[in-house]
């Protein structure tokens, strides 16, 4: 892989991002236009846009890398990333859309009518967002370092600078079309190389699975505590998706609750198709790049496979395509998060002014950049898994109990979120401070979701029951708004005379 081709691919993606942002500035719209336009977005577009924002470095690079290292255990990650949307569909999609909340703090305020609950939710959303951006930047560092040999921090700095500038300038957002396009770009950037590699192997008579060798090579277990780790990981991924700030905003663009459900079902279909490709590439990586499992660069599997298997000009072109897709993944997820975070921060900390939004955007970019530069690259899929555990222990109880249980009080929600946050953060600190842990103790510390999520639910429920007298007065009205189908908006096919 020549450095020039790699840099060219990165430059094209960055240029396209900036151009779209500049174009978006000229397409400035009024609030009214925005809402009218939002209502006409078809579920297919909307679902593609959600996929575009959701598929991050962890999905694009991380899954194949984890399959190379951990083999079969890694297959739980794409299952969890996808099935999280099933939980979103079952418990959150339609009611959240009907609540009229634009952000999670909005939801807390609507449901609980409490400033404190809103503030705590805002702070947690910001923390989740920061933690989620860090692995994207690690992915950018890794990609740049592996494919060009340039220092990695340059990749992280480049992504963050472009995202921050476009967001501060006011572009790159609310453009469903752009995010939808990102999904198909990422899908293509993995699907085309996968199909090409399989064809090439078939033509040259090599086995894609190394005659089954791929499945017999040593597999490093995901956690040392066996099935507990697997279950805890599934809990984190299934219930962490419910609280991702940049994804929830997208649900507002659905016209009503029923179409929010349709959109989510389509997202499930898109993700199911997408994850097929990193999985296949991971299996190929186990055969053709086995050395990556040892040298700690497994996340580069997707980037290195084309030149290893095909080589020559074709290999170079495929690698360029993968690099472009990878940078699209870092930038779209990062910019979605920075915009959500800046929105939340400016509203709750800076009084909602435009200047406040700009300060917030800088703050939302600078903190994760410093975190990313100050920490070493972990396995991408695993790092994202920890963020999901944190979200599942904090935001998930608020959403689920807020939507389905009348007894939730502001005090209960705040207590539950704090208990989940402290439990989860404490466990991860213990895990990093005490490297000597082993067995179940290590599992409890590194994969805390299986106990912190129930803990957060129990604390929320107990404190809510203890403060029953303080339940918000309008609960009945809010519950009706969340669950009753919209008036006069029956879907066309269900229209009655």
């Amino acid at each position, binding site marked *: 892989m020549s450095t020039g081709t790699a840099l060219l691919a990165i430059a094209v993606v960055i240029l396209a991002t900036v151009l779209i942002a500049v174009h978006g500035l000229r397409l400035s719209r009024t609030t009214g236009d925005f809402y009218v336009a939002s209502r006409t977005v078809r579920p297919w577009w909307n679902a593609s846009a959600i996929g575009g924002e959701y598929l991050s470095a962890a999905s694009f690079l991380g899954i194949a890398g984890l399959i190379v290292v951990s083999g079969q255990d890694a297959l739980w990650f794409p299952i969890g990333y996808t099935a999280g949307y099933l939980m979103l569909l079952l418990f959150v999609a339609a009611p959240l859309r009907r609540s009229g909340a*634009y952000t999670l703090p*909005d939801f807390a305020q609507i449901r609980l009518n409490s400033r404190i609950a809103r503030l705590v939710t805002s702070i947690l959303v910001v923390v989740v967002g920061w933690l989620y951006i860090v692995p994207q930047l690690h992915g950018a560092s890794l990609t740049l370092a592996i494919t060009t040999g340039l220092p990695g921090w340059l990749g992280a700095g480049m992504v963050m600078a472009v995202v921050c500038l476009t967001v501060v300038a006011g572009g790159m957002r609310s453009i469903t079309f752009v995010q939808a396009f990102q999904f198909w770009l990422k899908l293509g950037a993995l699907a085309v190389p996968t199909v090409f590699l399989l064809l090439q192997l078939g033509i040259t008579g090599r086995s894609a699975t190394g005659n089954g060798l791929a499945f017999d090579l040593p597999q490093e277990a995901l956690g040392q505590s066996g099935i507990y780790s697997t279950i805890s990981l599934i809990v984190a991924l299934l219930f962490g998706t419910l609280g991702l700030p940049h994804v929830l905003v997208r649900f507002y663009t659905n016209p009503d609750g029923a179409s929010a459900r349709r959109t989510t079902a389509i997202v*499930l279909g898109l993700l199911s198709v997408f994850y*097929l490709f990193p999985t296949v590439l991971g299996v190929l990586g186990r055969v053709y790049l086995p050395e990556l499992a040892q040298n700690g660069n497994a996340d580069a599997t997707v980037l290195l496979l084309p030149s290893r298997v095909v080589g020559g000009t074709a290999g170079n072109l495929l690698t360029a395509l993968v690099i472009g897709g990878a940078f699209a993944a870092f930038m779209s997820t990062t910019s979605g998060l920075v915009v959500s975070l800046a929105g939340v921060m400016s509203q709750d900390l800076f009084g909602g002014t435009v200047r406040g939004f700009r300060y917030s955007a800088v703050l939302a970019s600078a903190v994760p950049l410093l975190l990313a530069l100050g920490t070493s690259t972990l396995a991408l899929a695993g790092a994202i898994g920890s963020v999901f555990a944190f979200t599942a222990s904090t935001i998930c109880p608020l959403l689920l109990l807020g939507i389905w249980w009348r007894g939730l009080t502001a005090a209960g929600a705040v207590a539950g979120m704090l208990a989940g946050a402290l439990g989860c953060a404490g466990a991860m600190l213990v895990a990093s401070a005490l490297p000597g842990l082993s067995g179940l103790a290590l599992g409890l510390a590194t994969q805390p979701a299986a106990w912190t999520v129930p803990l957060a639910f129990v604390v929320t429920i107990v404190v809510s029951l203890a403060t029953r007298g303080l339940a918000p007065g309008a609960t*009945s009205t809010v519950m009706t708004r969340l669950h009753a189908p919209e008036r006069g908006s029956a879907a066309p096919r269900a229209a009655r005379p």
Partner: protein
Amino acid sequence: MSGEGADGPVDHPAVPVRVRVTAPEGAPLSVTARRAGHDPAAEFYVRSLIRSQLRLSLSVALGFLLLLLCLAVMVAVWPQIHAIRILTIPLPWIVLGIGVYPIILLGAFLYNRASARYEARYRDVTGE
């Protein structure tokens, strides 16, 4: 700012004024009880709608979680299953890498249908 230009199609300047989009207009963030005199019948219908939706969601979710748990346990306690191979691929890889996804989609499809049916029934009884 005149305070009017933003919300009416009165006159369109060449470049529309850019405004920050915040919380939705139609949905006030603080909800006050709409009707002072509470309608017990309406309340009853909403409560039974919520109950049936929750029952539906919980049964789909628990069914799916149970399935995942069975798969996790099966893979953990029965290593011989790896010997079963189709096109050199062991059965657990096929089930976890491909087989789970159609089940997720089927669950989503059936849930959507049932959930829409509950809402249609609610519309019928409340006459909305």
